[in-house]
């Protein structure tokens, strides 16, 4: 027996990652919510299965599987995946939400132009000419290609001033 083996502490069991616990909790909560809601919808009618039967079964499956997953994790915690690039996630999601919120107001061309400029120039650090050309092609170019080429109408601005200049 070496000194090392005497002094080394036994390896503490790995713990369940908080994100995994949060995930299991969320799935269990959704399962229980669906179970309760589907009973209100009605499980069986005189004609056969009611609108709540299928969701009831799925809610039960989701809740039960969440419990099984929790038990599996408690017995042997799984390795968590690598973290995400938070800056990228925030930049993409927030810019998409803003774009969706203003698209009907500013129109597709202007809002998409600003969105692309943000991703190419501000976030991507591309040169001005490359950013401007790509943004114009992706906004004005896409608008005309979809409207006249594919007969798919993209939104125009709700502001009369912008509308009159073709935005």
């Amino acid at each position, binding site marked *: 027996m070496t000194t090392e083996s005497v002094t080394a502490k036994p390896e503490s069991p790995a713990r369940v990652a908080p*994100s*995994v616990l949060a*995930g299991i909790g969320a*799935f269990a909560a959704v*399962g229980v919510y*669906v179970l309760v*809601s589907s009973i209100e*919808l009605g499980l*069986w*009618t005189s*004609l*056969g*299965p*009611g*609108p*709540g039967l*299928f*969701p009831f079964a*799925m809610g039960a*499956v*989701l809740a039960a*599987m*969440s419990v*099984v*997953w929790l038990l*599996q994790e408690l017995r042997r915690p*799984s390795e968590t*995946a*690598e973290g*995400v*690039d938070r800056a*990228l*996630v925030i930049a*993409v*999601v927030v810019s*998409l*939400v803003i*774009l*969706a*919120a203003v*698209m*009907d107001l500013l129109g597709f061309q202007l809002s*998409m132009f600003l*969105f*692309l400029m943000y*991703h*190419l120039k501000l*976030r*991507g650090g*591309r040169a001005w000419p*490359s950013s401007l050309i*790509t943004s114009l092609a*992706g906004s004005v170019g*896409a608008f005309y290609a*979809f409207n006249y080429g*594919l*007969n*798919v*109408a*993209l939104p125009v601005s709700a502001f009369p001033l912008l509308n009159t200049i073709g935005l």
Partner: protein
Amino acid sequence: MDIFNELMGGFAAAMTWQNLLFAFLGCLLGTIIGVLPGIGPVAGVALLIPLTLNLDATGAIIMLCAIFYGTAYGGTITSVLLNTPGEAASAITTIDGYAMTRIGKAGAALTIAAVGSFVGGTIATLGLVAAAKPLGELGLLVGPPEFFALMVVGISLLVALAGKSMVKAVISGALGLLIAMVGIDPVAGAPRFTFGMDRLLDGVSFVAVIVGVFGLSELLSYRKGSATPNVHAPNLRSLLPTGKEWRRSAPAMARGTGIGFGLGLIPGMTGSVSSLLSYGAEKKFSRYRNELGKGAIEGVAGPETANNSHANAALIPLFTLGIPASPTIAVLMGAFLQQGLTPGPTLFTEHSDIAWAIIASLFIGNLLLLVLNVPLVGLWTSILRVPTTILTALILLFMVIGAYTINFSVFDVFVMIGFGLLGLALRHLDIPLAPMVLTLVLGPLMERSLRESLEISQGDFSIFTSRPISAVLIGLGLLIIFSPLLKLRKPKALNEDPET
């Protein structure tokens, strides 16, 4: 003769200039998706569904099918030139494909891969022609109980798509079914899980969900450090393989066609499994097996033929039985449904003209890809030189347009963003996404047929066992579902399948 006439009618419909244009555009876009690492075929097909919403059903499905098998061609290019598979089914091609690039034989590798893909794809499509009529005639015998039984077989494929954890796969499948249930109940007309929002009465848009879960979440999970690759296209003269290379490739293509076709018919098997097993077959049976791994042409010809043969053969269960054999085919099935076509036995009785036009277009598409792929290799490689920031911005642009144009409402853009975050969370928790797309597509069909059947039988469940076709199919579905309990081991290739 009957089949021949129907197929000729299909060719006549598929060869209008509009449908040829759709097939051409589909091949082009599919190859680009295949070339771009990071966008898999599932996200790619979903992303491009909105482009087809305003087209007639035949043109739309022709274009989406071309996108689907175009990805299988495109994935090869980066595997051979960059050692980076554009899509999972081409991963094994990197071994000998890239080794051939290093010894100056990239052109021959790409040509053999394209010819192998053409051979495999065309032979598998001939199989579809042969199977279509006899299986399509089943359509006359299919009522709600049989349809429900088919859906049970379809849902049972969740077992094959489970990846590492069955529990996580079932969670993913249940989530897909719950998402599909949002909106007006198809039989009683009661609103379900709409939270008082009128916009949800029609349900959550399938396209917005798929684009979010597969496309946006993939983009959100990108990591830093992906530099623009330095890639050189081979010149035209080097694209011609030598006589010896042709002779060596022929047996590998034959084996690849057989493996891809056989596995493509089995729901739950993905193209990756076919290409892996084909490479395994070359290691065992090729006369030049000792050269494999060092730039042997068989290592490219076999797997590339197999994955394209698989892609086309996997359309047989979809067209004839309505069973999506892989996640990408499930998305394709969703596109059929959006166009008012229900794939399966009834397709050939109710929309025979459309079905045969699509089948004919598969032959045309395979030929187009052969013609497009090799000479345009310089164009495909130039796409890889586009900086990541520009590609990301353009992909986001397509996602927004795709989500918006479903109902011409920004509500669907918000839905896409929400499901993008859900997809990111599922990826982080290592929950497979494939079962979700399967149940999302099959769930509503399954529920409707279950409830219609039970209304016919006035609540008596024996309707499913008293009719021979449904009894056999339900038995088969249950056997697949409970196969893990019978200790039936999954092949190693299936456990390591990157597509699940």
